[in-house]
């Protein structure tokens, strides 16, 4: 019996369906899976940032207990195994394609970063595999290495790839240079600002893992992997690396313990265990150790930028010029090239009606772990640059930082708004989110709190960030024209079973987002089926027809819209069946929340009546309509979605230790229509925690020789509960105008909006010290250095 309580549909803070298994230890993550006859793999990784491999001697290792096989790069090359592919091609200013050097799954002749896999050992137990990996003798000749983003382009820098002269991957630009120069020529003031966006390690709590399995009788391969997008992995690995047809390759991404971007990409280990399973004819499990994650999961951010803002005498923005260097690491990860270009430079207008923008971006290779999208991907970098620049400019122009922003906002009546950097924002109300946030944060009362802190010897500062981001990626035709090698639609199937329960198949993947609940709410809202009777199936290429996965806050905007479209088809077919059963004309049948009704009458049929008739077609228009009630829809978005809002942060600094504490954080975000407020708030809180982490705590630090100095939780500062404040989260809604749900996306806003709010607060706290800028992360040591330098100068 399908009865929906009113609290299950859109807008209900429904408690999550998935929590029962997670809370009782019954989730099934990749490392929890054990296949019959399973063996274990350990990767032998390079200790050098850059070296030639002169010889690999595996004889002693092969003779060790339990060892089944050892493979090196040449073994894969001998079978014409392809390199790990890149999914996005950027073109240089002159129209030529970017440098795209080969990325072998196992190193061939050379290693290019600490952690580059050199050999795989497969043994009966993991301990045996590790024991044997230590017995492999690799003769390396170390080469000079380059790790710094700026250092990579210096003349004479060590060359990471022969195929990338001067370590340049691409030299790209966007915008109108001549118009920008003209705008700057008539400016009353040009404010210049340089900054580094610190390199981060995503550190999803579940380390990556992969199990390769091969059925020698059917020739079928199965890969269980910690992925945000199993279909993409099947496509990339099957077609480009292992040359296995999709029909013979199943990729399963079961419960996945967080992704944040780092589990989008096709990683070498996935290809290695799948291929090797075919060789040893046994399942092979590989589970990453955390210290291994640090040197093999794609890192994030790592930009060095210079920005210049031209203002007129009234403080109106005339133009923006940006020059950015982006570190790609040693190889191109799946989405890496598009992050500092189409996910970054296109966001440089921010929430402001900036008339002209010109940005150039150079991407460089270094002897470091590949860099790719990490929560926000390009948009946090753009937002940080712009929102710090706004504060610097306001200070130099002697303007109030809130008024300066407000004065330059895109007004609600300007939507749809075409920016000078390709995007067209569909909706938003930046004045409203600003006003709400100022009120919630008691902006007006700050100076009193600052004085109170000062009386106790602490430095209090307040910072604001007003931002917009582009997510819900993306129109396939648009991204195709920009170099994407895949479509970016999503697929949804709605299967109404004979007695009315529903199975939803989606190409989106849940790794913390709560899709099993949110998606069920969509069905409850539209079809009137209680969420308890709706099951969401995702993460298995054998079950779900196709999909592009979850990243870029796209699951609801794109995946949810596909489901909505499929539900429209269900309703349309249902109406035809209902019309037959009620002997009415199709045009007269209405549908609302589970009930088909002949308009203006009390004649009704429930969805269950219809589904039963569809599968038991005794009284059914069989010549006109096929039996069954299952529909699939592909939804290709017409545009990106544009969540935005305002974040306000208050910090207190202990000048004696340099320690910064976030004492207040207020976020007001416009994420479009909210399906489940509880889940949205959780997403925003989590994103803000990562943003505060970037601003105050986290940094992947390489030394000049390419050794990772922050290679474990002993040295890489992960935010802990005590490092974070209670976060105030609210939403203000303007609807997305181009998708059927009106949703925008909430996964990344926290990580995008928060870092500049925190850093603006830090700089504000240090205002008496004459500080113009502080680089992230604002560690105690760094802040103490500033305070101390000021003290010395004053003496």
């Amino acid at each position, binding site marked *: 019996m399908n009865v929906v309580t009113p609290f299950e549909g859109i807008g209900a803070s429904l*408690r*999550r369906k*998935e*929590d*029962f*298994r*997670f*809370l*009782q*230890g*019954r*989730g*099934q*993550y990749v*490392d*929890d899976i*054990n296949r019959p006859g399973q063996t274990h793999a350990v990767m032998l990784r390079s200790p050098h940032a850059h070296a030639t491999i002169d010889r690999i001697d595996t004889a002693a290792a092969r003779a060790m207990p339990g060892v089944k096989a050892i493979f090196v790069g040449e073994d894969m090359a001998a079978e014409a195994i392809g390199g790990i592919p890149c999914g996005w091609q950027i073109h240089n200013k002159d129209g030529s394609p970017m440098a795209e050097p080969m990325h072998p799954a196992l190193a061939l002749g050379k290693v290019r970063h600490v952690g580059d896999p050199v050999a795989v050992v497969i043994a009966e137990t993991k*301990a045996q595999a590790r024991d044997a990996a230590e017995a492999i003798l690799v003769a390396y000749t170390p080469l000079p290495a380059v790790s710094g983003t700026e250092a990579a382009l210096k003349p004479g820098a060590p060359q990471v790839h022969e195929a990338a002269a001067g370590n340049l991957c691409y030299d790209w630009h966007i915008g109108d240079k001549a118009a920008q120069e003209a705008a700057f020529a008539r400016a009353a003031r040009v404010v210049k600002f340089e900054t580094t966006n610190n390199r981060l390690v995503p*550190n*999803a*709590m*579940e*380390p990556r893992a992969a199990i390769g399995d091969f059925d020698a009788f059917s020739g079928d391969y199965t890969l269980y992997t910690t992925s945000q997008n199993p279909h993409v992995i099947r496509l990339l690995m099957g077609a480009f690396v292992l040359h296995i047809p999709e029909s013979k390759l199943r990729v399963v991404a079961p*419960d*996945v*313990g*967080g992704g*944040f971007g780092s589990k989008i990409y096709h990683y070498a280990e996935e290809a290695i265990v799948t291929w090797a399973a075919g060789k040893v004819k046994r399942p092979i499990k590989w589970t990453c*150790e*955390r*210290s291994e994650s640090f040197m093999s999961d794609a890192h994030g951010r790592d930009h060095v930028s210079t920005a210049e803002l031209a203002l007129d005498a009234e403080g109106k923005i005339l133009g923006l010029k940006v020059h950015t260097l982006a570190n790609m690491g040693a190889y191109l990860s799946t989405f890496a090239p598009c992050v500092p270009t189409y996910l970054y430079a296109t966001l440089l207008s921010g929430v402001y009606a900036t008339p002209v923008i010109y940005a150039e971006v150079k991407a460089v290779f270094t002897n470091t772990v590949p860099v790719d999208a990490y929560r926000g991907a390009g948009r946090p970098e753009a937002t940080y640059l712009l929102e710090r620049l706004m504060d610097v400019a306001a200070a130099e122009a002697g303007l109030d930082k809130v008024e300066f922003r407000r004065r330059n906002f895109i007004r609600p009546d300007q939507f749809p708004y075409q920016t000078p950097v390709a995007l067209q924002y569909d909706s938003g109300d930046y004045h409203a989110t600003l006003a709400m946030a100022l009120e919630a944060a008691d902006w007006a009362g700050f100076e009193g709190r600052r004085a109170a802190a000062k009386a106790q010897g602490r430095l209090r500062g307040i910072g604001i960030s007003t931002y917009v981001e582009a997510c819900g990626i993306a129109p396939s035709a648009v991204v195709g024209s920009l170099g994407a090698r895949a479509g970016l639609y999503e697929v949804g199937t709605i299967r109404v079973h004979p007695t009315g329960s529903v199975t939803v198949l989606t190409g989106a993947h849940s*790794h*913390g*987002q*709560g899709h099993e609940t949110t998606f069920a709410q969509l069905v409850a809202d539209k079809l009137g089926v209680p969420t308890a009777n709706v099951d969401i199936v995702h993460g298995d290429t054998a079950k779900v027809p196709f999909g592009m996965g979850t990243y870029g806050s796209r699951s609801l905007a794109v995946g949810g819209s596909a489901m909505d479209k499929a539900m429209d088809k269900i309703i349309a077919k249902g109406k035809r069946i209902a019309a037959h059963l009620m002997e009415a004309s199709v045009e007269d049948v209405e549908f609302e929340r589970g009930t088909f009704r002949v308009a203006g009458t009390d004649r009704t049929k429930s969805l269950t009546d219809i589904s039963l008739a569809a599968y038991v077609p005794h009284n059914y228009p069989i010549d006109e309509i096929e039996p069954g009630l299952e529909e699939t829809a592909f939804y290709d978005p017409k545009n990106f979605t544009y969540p935005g809002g305002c974040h306000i942060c208050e910090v207190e600094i202990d000048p004696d230790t340099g320690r910064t504490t976030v004492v207040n954080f207020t976020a007001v975000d416009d994420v479009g229509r909210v399906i489940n407020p*509880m*889940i949205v*708030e*959780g*997403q925003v*809180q*989590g*994103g*803000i*925690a*990562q943003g505060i982490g970037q601003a105050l705590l986290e940094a992947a630090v390489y030394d000049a020789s390419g050794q990772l100095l922050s290679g*474990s*939780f*002993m040295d890489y500062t*992960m*935010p*802990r*509960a*005590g490092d*974070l404040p*209670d*976060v105030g989260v609210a939403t203000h809604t303007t609807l997305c105008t181009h998708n059927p749900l009106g949703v925008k996306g909430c996964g990344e806003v*926290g990580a995008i909006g928060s870092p500049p709010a925190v850093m603006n607060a830090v700089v504000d706290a240090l205002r008496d010290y004459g500080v113009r800028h502080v680089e992230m992360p604002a560690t105690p040591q760094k802040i103490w250095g500033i305070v101390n330098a000021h003290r010395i100068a004053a003496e």
Partner: protein
Amino acid sequence: MPQVTLTVNGTKHTVEVEARTLLVEALRETLRLTGTHVGCDTSQCGACVVHMGGDSVKSCTILAVQCEGSDITTIEGLAAADGTLHPMQEAFREYHALQCGFCTPGMVMSAIDLVNKHPDGMTEQQIREGLEGNLCRCTGYHNIVKAIAAAQDVMHGRVSELARAAAE
């Protein structure tokens, strides 16, 4: 190989392990209790926390042989036989204190020990400090702190915040 006898979630097991086998390996690989997770190799993340004689411990930093004769409780052993969740589990669900679920088992086990060791209740700051040994990358801890604050009242038999929240 050494033999070790330990009681896990009320059931006595005798298993053969290498001396170097960690408790978490014995739980996950020998007893197939995969609810206890491993998120790091430097004893910091706390995804592997279980109770040993009622105290929270990191099962990645104890040898199985060190657990001879001990009483171990894992996340699988918390709920009642009829499926009723432990108040801490219930609070985590009610307050949306989990997202990907990976840190959750360790977080819940730590939280229970924390509440047990503070019979007079904890402030928000004490809860935050008490979670020092557990990392979560999804939630920003915000709702975890709220869940523990609510669960401590239930566990200590005080005003039932949970009941109130559920009634709302």
